[in-house]
């Protein structure tokens, strides 16, 4: 066999092998999509197949009327973007201080920040619940958001980006009469845009998917998020699993994020990659 031929063979084997594995990886998702389209009565062993004979949106209609999804989406959007908005302010200020300012206790404070990377709020559900209750924030969106307003991860990422901003640009801004906040806004933020975008995507995904904390904090749909709504689909207290309906509910919940992902695939992958590279 020619070297070229053997290279082609290796490529074909690669495509086949990795392709098979990739198929296994996407199979559960494909199954969820096809089952959500299967008519409620269509059961039997074909429930495991990917092929749907007579696709219908009946499950979606039922799922949609079963839960106040618009409200849940709205709450989720407020929570996710609310967290992100505050985070962007807190991490920018803190990252600038750590990257560019000299002050006593800097290293100690930086380490104190990093502590939050290890002791994520999810480990502190009990004490934080007590605090939120004492603050009267149970069953509010603010209660879901507030423990995440500071982000060690974001501060850390952004500090790295800020450190690579050239000093002469900063000095030029100072000569132009910019104060620190103006310098941050006109020099640092624009130059760190890729990092900010990366952090934003990671933050949005994380908080969109968060479950236990909003479950504990909320009583009613007033503040509940989509993941909590989805769980109540699968936990119908006294009836059997209705897979078609559960699949439809799952699709409704995962679709927004997946859709955005498909549209901005490259950006997403880069962002998560970047968060690893730097984080």
């Amino acid at each position: 066999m020619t070297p070229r031929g053997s290279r082609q063979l290796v490529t074909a084997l690669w495509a086949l092998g990795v392709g098979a594995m990739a198929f296994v990886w996407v199979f559960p998702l494909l199954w969820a999509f096809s089952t959500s389209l299967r008519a409620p009565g269509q059961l039997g062993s074909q429930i495991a197949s990917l092929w749907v004979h007579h696709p219908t949106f009946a499950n979606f209609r039922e799922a949609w009327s079963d839960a106040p999804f618009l409200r849940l989406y709205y709450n989720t959007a407020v929570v996710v973007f609310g967290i992100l908005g505050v985070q962007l302010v807190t991490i920018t200020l803190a990252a600038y201080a750590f990257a560019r300012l000299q002050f006593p206790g800097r290293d100690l404070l930086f380490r104190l920040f990093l502590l939050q990377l290890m002791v994520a709020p999810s480990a502190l559900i009990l004490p934080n619940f007590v605090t939120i209750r004492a603050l009267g924030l149970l069953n509010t969106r603010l209660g879901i958001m507030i423990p995440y307003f500071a982000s060690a991860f974001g501060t850390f990422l952004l500090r790295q980006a800020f450190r690579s901003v050239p000093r002469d640009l900063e000095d030029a801004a100072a000569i132009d009469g910019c104060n620190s906040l103006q310098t941050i806004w006109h020099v640092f933020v624009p130059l760190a845009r890729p990092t900010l975008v990366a952090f934003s995507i990671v933050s949005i995904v994380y908080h969109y998917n968060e479950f236990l904390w909003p479950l504990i904090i909320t009583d009613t749909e007033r503040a509940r998020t989509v993941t909590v709504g989805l769980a109540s689909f699968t936990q119908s207290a006294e009836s059997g699993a209705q897979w078609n309906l559960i699949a439809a509910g799952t699709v409704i919940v995962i679709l927004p994020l997946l859709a955005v992902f498909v549209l901005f695939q490259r950006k997403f992958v880069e962002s998560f990659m970047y968060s690893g590279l730097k984080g």
Partner: protein
Amino acid sequence: MGGGGMAMVRRWTALAAVAAVAVALAQAGAGAQAPIALRYYYPVGASGPLNRLMTEMVNDFNASHPGIRVEPVFAGNYVEAMAKAMTAVLGGTPPDLAVLDTPELYSLLDRNAIIPLDDLIAQSGGARWLDDFYGALLLNARANGHVYSIPWQRSTPIFYYNKDMFRKAGLDPNRPPKNWTELAAYGQKLTVRDASDRVTQWGVEAPVADTSPWVFQGFLIEAGAKYFDTETGKWVKFNSPEAVSALQFILDLQRKYKVHPPGPTSKAFWDQVPQDFIQQKVAMIYSTTGNMTFIRTNAKFEWNAAFMPAGKRYGAPTGGGSFYIFNKIPQDHVQAAWTFIRWMTEPAQAARWSIGSGYVPIRKTELSAPAFAAYLKQVPQALTATLQLRVAGEQMTIHDVDQIGTILVTAIQAAQSGRLSPQAALDQAQRDATAILQKYQ
């Protein structure tokens, strides 16, 4: 540290309470015409048909009672609803009323969270009014000589079977197994294996323990076990010979007769059982009456409902939720909450709920409500559950019931997995439960 944190939390709590009182006073001063707003915790998720039906009924109540506005809080399943209600109580802002898992009685009393309803019942016709409710449903409404809850969405596990499969196996489809011996024998006829000895159809599936030992309590009652203190909820007896025999029978179905899937009955199994039934993977199942609507709409074969087969006697635990009114709420709220409970449990409303949800009728007069009579014609099986109530026993209602229920679940699963013998598993559960109940002696 030294108490600082705890003190701070208490200060905040006090502050919040003061603020709440201030708000309440401001509202009271704003105008006597404002309707009384009742916070009503109800155990269902943010979704589903029960949520819809409950919302409709509450809206109807509010429309016909201008002085009262009931505001439902859909708080999740029983466990979560209890957690939310407790959180509110401990935070000093109790709900006005709630439907909670009936066996939580002592947990609620221990936290001084609920009030006795005797005076309110007396206003409403006293014993005559109360006697219209099925006696079995009131068993765990009483403690220390008081009535603390009014039955609402009550259920009981019943026995469903596939008549077509009975015919195929040469069994009389109108004669379900009467007792454990027949159950095992039927099971053997109804378990189908393929050429390689793999089971393609199981005889029976009983989710005896998922996250609660509810269905298992039916077997305990049938075995004649007195497994908890029905008077004061202060002791359990999980390792009596009768209790061991109940667990042994479950294991026999799995191992000796091989008519029940092997291994522990898990959380996922609870949801799987009715699904298996409509998929025709199993001939006979134990499941809640709450699943009757699901089975009726999905089964593509002839099915029937029957009593749970008897051991020494027939028996089944009651289950489901009841109305509780909370402590430390204003007197006019108590009255308004009672008005709401009275209205909801009127035969016509109760029948509307039973038909829409599949829960058992709670009152005798409910059966003669025109809507229910029509429903029974359509779904004669629904009567079985009601009849079984006559032989039903009390669901375990004790102090710290959630924790002790989990202990019993663990014991059952340990025996099913073969880690412990039935006797050893139940001995262990008895020791653990007794240690917890120690503080109430």
